[in-house]
């Protein structure tokens, strides 16, 4: 046998295998992915049901919410329990770690019917769901729906303008905010007071404080290096710069990541990070920064507002009552800038009308002032300005709720295009390279700008020529 048989077998199997491979090609070509055109939207606008005064309200269908496991989850669970208690409507929570949220959301909107009635979408990826029609415009569910003006829209993260391909004020309402994460500037008030320093208003104030407070055991400032884009964009906005800019008259985009303002912002950010940061300044993410502040190893930093409760947590913090918060400083007084890092909730496109109605009923209730006050008291980050202002006097959380209220006029957003994840990848890579001196600040900005220009051009946007 054996060699002869094997060779004979190989020869005879060859045509069979060829046939099978050809068959597989055929299967691949006929697979479900062969759709070349998106089907016409089937969800016609539905009329809102007029409430009847004679009948008791019928309980709505149960809903399931995809929600991320994060520090504010407990507050959201409390909010949901209150809703169930008050209305009798049933809500199920699907708790998922951050890294699984995007995949679960994508899978849900690709199914024939979504398993979730509400998706919790992050600042970084909600645009893809809006742009591709994967969540339902709110007015398609209830044409009379109006967002309360006290609900902060975080530079229109709630809206999408299909013509511009951008979140703009004139866009259609696709989602509502549910977690109002923005950045705050945190500092060690006890140390500042001891040195006679006031709360910084400008980056120059921050640097002066860092110089005085830096020691062998204490970093004067710590930058967020993993990922760096979010914090840097606050610096950039505080110098009047931006990554890209839309000319609403001509509809043309301009890449401004290589502007003189960007260079000033980057130099300030690098100086604070390198000269006043800990030895591992290029290695700190949000968790490490919280740990540094909570263990008394850093004097000041810019971080998400939601981290404030950690500094008051006796199980984690050695600096309880010693940390204060104010709006993120600017390049000059009044040039403060904070970045939006919020979560919005959207209703999938692939749901029957009654499930969409039930989902919207929950969102409508959750955005009410009473619900938002309860939400804030339960440890979550509300999304209403009147709630922040009311909570500013709270003895427990007032110290940072006031900073949140004061920060609202300074909220900026990262680029909000369907291509944002690609742009963010460029920002993170180029900023990290600059931070570890792999490239010069000028190179980081000019190379980054060139890449962003290409991303926009390839995606078909009208883009102004890149300024050198």
């Amino acid at each position, binding site marked *: 046998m054996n060699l002869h048989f094997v060779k004979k*077998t190989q020869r*005879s*199997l060859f045509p*069979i*295998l060829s046939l*099978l*491979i050809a068959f*597989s*090609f055929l*299967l*691949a070509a006929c*697979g*479900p*992915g*062969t*759709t*070349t*055109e*998106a*089907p016409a*939207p089937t969800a016609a606008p539905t009329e809102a049901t007029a409430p009847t005064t004679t009948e008791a309200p019928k309980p709505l269908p149960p809903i399931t919410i995809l929600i991320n496991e994060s520090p504010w989850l407990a507050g959201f669970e409390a909010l949901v329990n209150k809703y169930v208690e008050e209305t009798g409507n049933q809500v199920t929570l699907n708790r998922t770690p951050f890294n699984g949220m*995007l*995949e679960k959301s*994508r899978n849900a*909107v*690709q*199914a*024939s019917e979504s398993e979730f009635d509400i998706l919790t979408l992050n600042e970084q*990826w909600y645009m893809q769901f809006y742009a*591709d*029609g*994967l969540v339902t415009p709110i007015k398609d569910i209830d044409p009379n729906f109006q967002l309360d003006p006290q609900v902060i829209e975080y530079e229109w993260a709630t809206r999408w303008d299909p013509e511009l391909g951008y979140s703009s004020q004139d866009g259609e309402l696709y989602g509502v905010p549910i977690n109002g994460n923005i950045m705050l500037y945190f500092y060690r008030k006890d140390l500042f007071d001891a040195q006679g320093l006031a709360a910084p208003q400008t980056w120059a104030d921050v640097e002066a404080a860092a110089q005085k407070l830096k020691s062998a055991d204490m970093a004067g400032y710590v930058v967020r*290096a*993993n990922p760096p884009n979010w914090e840097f964009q606050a610096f950039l906005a505080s110098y009047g710069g931006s990554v890209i800019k839309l000319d609403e008259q001509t509809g043309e985009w301009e890449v401004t990541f290589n502007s003189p303002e960007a260079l000033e912002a980057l130099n300030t950010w690098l100086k604070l990070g390198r000269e006043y940061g*800990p*030895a*591992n*300044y*290029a*290695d700190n993410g949000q968790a490490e920064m919280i*740990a*540094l502040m909570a*263990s008394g*190893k850093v004097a000041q930093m810019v971080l998400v507002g939601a981290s404030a409760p950690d500094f008051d947590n006796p199980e984690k913090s050695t600096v309880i009552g010693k940390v204060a918060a104010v709006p993120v400083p600017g390049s000059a007084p009044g040039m403060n800038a904070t970045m939006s890092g919020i979560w919005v909730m959207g209703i999938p*496109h*692939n749901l029957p009308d009654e499930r969409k109605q039930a989902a919207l009923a929950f969102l409508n209730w959750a955005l009410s002032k009473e619900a938002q006050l309860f939400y804030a008291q339960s440890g979550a980050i509300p999304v209403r300005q009147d709630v922040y202002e009311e909570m500013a006097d709270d003895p427990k959380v007032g110290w940072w709720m006031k900073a949140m209220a004061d920060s609202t006029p300074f909220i900026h957003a990262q680029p909000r295009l369907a291509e944002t*994840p*690609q742009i*963010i*990848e460029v920002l993170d*890579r180029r900023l*990290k*390279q600059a*931070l*570890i001196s*792999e490239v010069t600040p000028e190179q980081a900005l000019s*190379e980054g700008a060139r*890449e962003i220009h*290409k991303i926009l051009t*390839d995606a078909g946007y009208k883009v102004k020529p890149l300024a050198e």
Partner: protein
Amino acid sequence: MNTPLNSSSVSRPPGLISRLGNFIDRTFQYWTIAPLVITLLLLMAYPSLQLLRMSVSEVDIVKGHAVWEFVGLKHLETALQDPVVPVALRNTLVFVIAVVIIETLLALTISILVSRSHHLVGLYRTVLLIPLLVPPIAIGTMWRLMYDYNYGFINQALAVFGIPGPTWTADPKLAMPSIILVDLWHWTSFMFLIILAGLESLPQELNEAARVDGATESQIFRYITLPLLRPTLVTAVMLRTIFAFKVFDEIFLLTGGGPGTATEVISLYIYDVFSGQFRLGYASFLALGLAVIISVFVIFYRRLGRRTQI
């Protein structure tokens, strides 16, 4: 010598049933394995072909439906202009070459020592197997904590001796060596197990005969053990190379590709393009490119294995 045939010795052509029986007899082996072959081909070929198809397409999900657009070699053009690709390929090659060479040498040394030991062989084998049993996610987390500049065990241990600990994962010069060290800890035992099995299966008679002829231990290793072990070594190195090209967990958890681009490898970039940027077509193209590079190495190792057979 030819012999004349008489009419009685000439057999009549077989009938249809007889021919069918013969055909079934001849091809019986194929029919028995056909279901398995078909299943395997469908399982392997279909996803591979889908990957191939995606790599020449732009794929978007609109209203829950995949929208495919054939783009030919556009992704190749994108890859050639993508500044991350050459950096990621260079880092991947550095990683692969470093871990494969060091792990092979380490595993070979440990295997020889263990195979010569007459005591506690089972214990050595069990202890050395432990890193292989730990889930990669736990390994990444564990080493991340150990490497931590402020609170990590390594720097705290160095501090006891008055040595200031470095920033293991934040220093561009140290980040890749730190990753490689974790990989050595994780994967050397894999190589050790394969090489030890190879060593234990070698015939001892040749060694004994060589000793009788006066050969030294180093001569025995150089001229008998190593040549006999080559097929095993080639297999082990080939498998390890394939796994090393696909490294993801350790780097994702320890450095996320940073600092800067110091530890950006191709698998990590494919993940970011696919999952973060949702560019399915381009990510498929990169994945296919990685598969082609790995295939080149596999072909090289197979040829090397054939050439070194004795």
